[in-house]
């Protein structure tokens, strides 16, 4: 039989769904503990939410799933949400703006066309947005929360990389570039096309300095030292970015988080304005986030600072170890009844559910091997026979006696 699933999409099997829910559950618990509240936004949004400068790049926009709605005769399109943050910011502006501080989290799918086959076109992420605070502590809180989730999922060896959109922009501004050209030039410096750029009339010395700067890696103190050495004494316009990055990095260091500053670690920083952090496991990016102070005013809201973080569920699913799922696999009970004892059988199932046992009613199709216990319901004494995995039998006359046996 031919596969009928849409290209670029995936199904989640029962086993995969269990892992999905585990990740979602750990994430939700962490967010609720940190005082975040859950929101859910619609799958469809207006395309124009994502088209302004500083939201999504044209390259991204050309891969969104947009179409005319049934009443779209004006030619304005709607889109399947291509990003997690922008809809939450829209929700904040629409209905929560009077709250000075909003701590929101979500679990949502996003849609982006993808033709390489390496990624799916529908992706799931769990994210948190911290709106209304501009201090480095806010950025650090989001990083710590993300690390806490990964730790609880027992995913270790995670690398944290820090960059800073404001600092990159200030450095690119030294080349005299408009904000639109900056992103393109940045990508080309990262690709090592300095020669090509100097042919376009950009200052070769500045380009080389910039390239060297982007190559810098390290902890906060050494990073700042090298940065100053390369640029000294001309730090004009860079100080706010440096201070902010040092503030975030210093606090993370004090908290014992392992990190590396690597300005060149980001590619698409369209709506970010401040610190950007990314989480890697091996070469794969499993999450990230950063500060986006300009986004809310850009989308028509008040001038409000904000930062956010997201973990990519599709990536995490491959990293969760089976032992993390152990608690989901508590022994199950199979209740077997005869036609004449079906009523008692169902009552027994209901009773066992009430006290928290995972219990199934035998439909004749279940495999006994999948259960920790089988429990036969008989019309004559003994009323209940409990059998464990080792085929050892226990008899009981009442449900209370059954519960006592199970508790042992």
């Amino acid at each position, binding site marked *: 039989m031919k596969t009928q699933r849409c290209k670029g999409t995936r199904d989640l099997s029962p086993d995969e769904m269990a892992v999905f829910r585990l990740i979602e559950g750990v994430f939700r618990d962490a967010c609720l503990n940190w005082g975040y509240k859950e929101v859910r936004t619609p799958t469809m949004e207006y395309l*124009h939410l994502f*088209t*302004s*400068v500083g939201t999504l790049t*044209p*390259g991204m*926009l*050309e891969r969104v799933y947009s179409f*005319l709605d*049934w*009443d*779209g*005769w*004006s*030619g*304005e399109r709607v889109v399947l949400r291509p990003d997690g943050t922008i809809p939450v910011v829209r929700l904040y502006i629409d209905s929560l703006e009077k709250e000075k501080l909003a701590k929101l989290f979500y679990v949502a799918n996003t849609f982006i066309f993808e*033709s390489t086959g390496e990624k799916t076109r529908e992706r799931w992420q769990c994210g948190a947005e911290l709106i209304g605070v501009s201090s480095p502590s806010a950025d650090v809180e989001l990083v710590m929360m993300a690390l806490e989730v990964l730790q609880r999922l027992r995913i270790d060896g995670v690398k944290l990389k820090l960059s800073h959109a404001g600092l990159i922009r200030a450095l690119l501004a030294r080349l005299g570039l408009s904000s*639109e050209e900056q992103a393109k030039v940045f990508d080309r410096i990262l690709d090592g096309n300095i020669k090509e750029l100097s042919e376009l009339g950009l200052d070769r010395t500045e380009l080389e300095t910039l390239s060297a700067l982007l190559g810098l890696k390290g902890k906060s103190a050494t990073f700042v030292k090298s940065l100053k050495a390369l640029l000294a004494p001309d730090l004009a316009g860079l100080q706010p970015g440096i201070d902010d990055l040092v503030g975030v990095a210093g606090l993370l260091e004090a908290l014992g988080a392992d990190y590396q500053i690597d300005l060149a670690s980001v590619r698409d920083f369209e709506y970010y304005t401040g610190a950007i952090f990314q989480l890697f496991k091996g070469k794969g990016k499993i999450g990230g986030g950063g500060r986006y102070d300009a986004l809310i005013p850009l989308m028509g809201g008040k001038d409000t600072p904000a930062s956010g973080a997201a973990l990519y569920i599709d990536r995490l699913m491959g990293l969760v170890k089976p032992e993390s799922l152990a608690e989901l696999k508590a022994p199950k009970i199979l209740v077997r009844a005869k036609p004449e004892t079906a009523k008692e059988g169902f009552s027994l199932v209901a009773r066992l559910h009430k006290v928290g046992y995972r219990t199934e009613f035998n439909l004749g199709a279940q495999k006994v091997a999948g259960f920790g216990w089988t429990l036969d319901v008989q019309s004559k004494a003994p009323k209940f026979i409990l059998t464990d995995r080792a085929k050892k039998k226990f008899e009981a006359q009442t449900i209370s006696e059954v519960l006592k046996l199970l508790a042992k």
Partner: protein
Amino acid sequence: MPKGRLLAETAARLKEAGWGLDGYSASARLYRVKSRNFPRLSAKMFHERDIPVQVAIGNYDLGICGSDWIEELMVKYPSSALVRVGSLGYAQSALYAAFSAADGVSAVEAVQQRSGVVRIASEYPNLAEHFALNLRLRRFGVFPLWGAAEAYPPESADLALLCGTEEGLADCGLAPVTKVLAVSACLVANRNSWEAKDMKEVVASIYDEAAAKGTELETIKPYPGRRPPKSKISPPGADGDTVRLALPDGHQQSPTFELLSKAGIGIDDYPSPTGNRRPATDLPGVAVKVIRPQDMPLQVASGNFDLAITGRDWLREHLYQFPTSPVKELLDLRSGRVKIVAVVSNDMPVADAAGLISLSAGRTAPLRVASEYVNIADKYARDNHLGSYRVVPTWGATEAFLPEDADLLIENTETGRTIARHNLKIIDTLFESTACLIGSRRRVANVVKREKINSIIQALQTGVN
């Protein structure tokens, strides 16, 4: 091979190349052509816009069409199996983004700053969207058009994306702001055919790689290029009590002129031998524009026109796509009567819609339904439970698609003679269509304007009777 604007030059080029084609001319009555000199070559004539799609799908190995239509496909579907072999060097023009000259020459920044919706009219909706996204327009609406884009700015659109020359645009009162793409006739190939089939001889006969150097094919790149200085652009909809009436171009012009005469409405220069799209009438306070009837329902829905004379087929096509559209039929003008029919090849053992269902049930490949009316065709396929089907949009000469490139057509016909001539048969009639006057359900607040609209409806009613 293309019909329309490229036909004459392409035919001359192929004649020179010694293809020995019979029947590739503007007066051709059949669309299939054989080559006398390349016995393994057979060709079909299509509307130019259909050619890149047909080649990409793999129905054809090679195609000749304007590079504008290639980029219109590739900008939206970059992974299409299409190889741009190269420019054939003739029919050179360019695709421009243009404003009304009345708006000032360079209004890009003014449009970029606009907080309202920027209206872009174009026969190239994919390129128009690409242009708008790369210009970082905050909000925009693209009006896909069948033609006459030059007539839209400034009243009915803020800018148009259209093919032509700078002089040609100036003649239409337009100022080109940006060249989006250099356009010329171009040879394209299907990627699989290009790799697997030996087409060297045929390709070499018309395409000289060495000579093509310097006329290299331009492909669509992200705009922006240069940034023009600021100037003002007039806000849309500032037209007070003027009634905006759309009249059809093409073969509906004569019956429309006749109707206007009977209704006592005088009109100058319509049909216009010089292609004037803004004829004057003796109705005070009424602005007339001549556009494609296919485009009218969308334009009335968007509020760009108050009244329009179009066909019921196009009204239905619009309402099937946008069921809550405010457009409605105001008056049956009883002219231009056609039937909208379902058509299959004579060789197909199907006599009616029921036969189609059993046919589609027995197939593994989806049923291909070709039509200029994509929404009518889609509804017909859904209503008849045709199972797995695909609607292939076409831009004219749809009869050419059967039987190789489609299984079913949804077409209009006056007498049925064209259908019979192409060895096709009608298996179902969907509805009858005549010319009609359409308007908006929305209440017109301006009393003067409302009365003017009513008096035009009255006059046309008299003309019909």
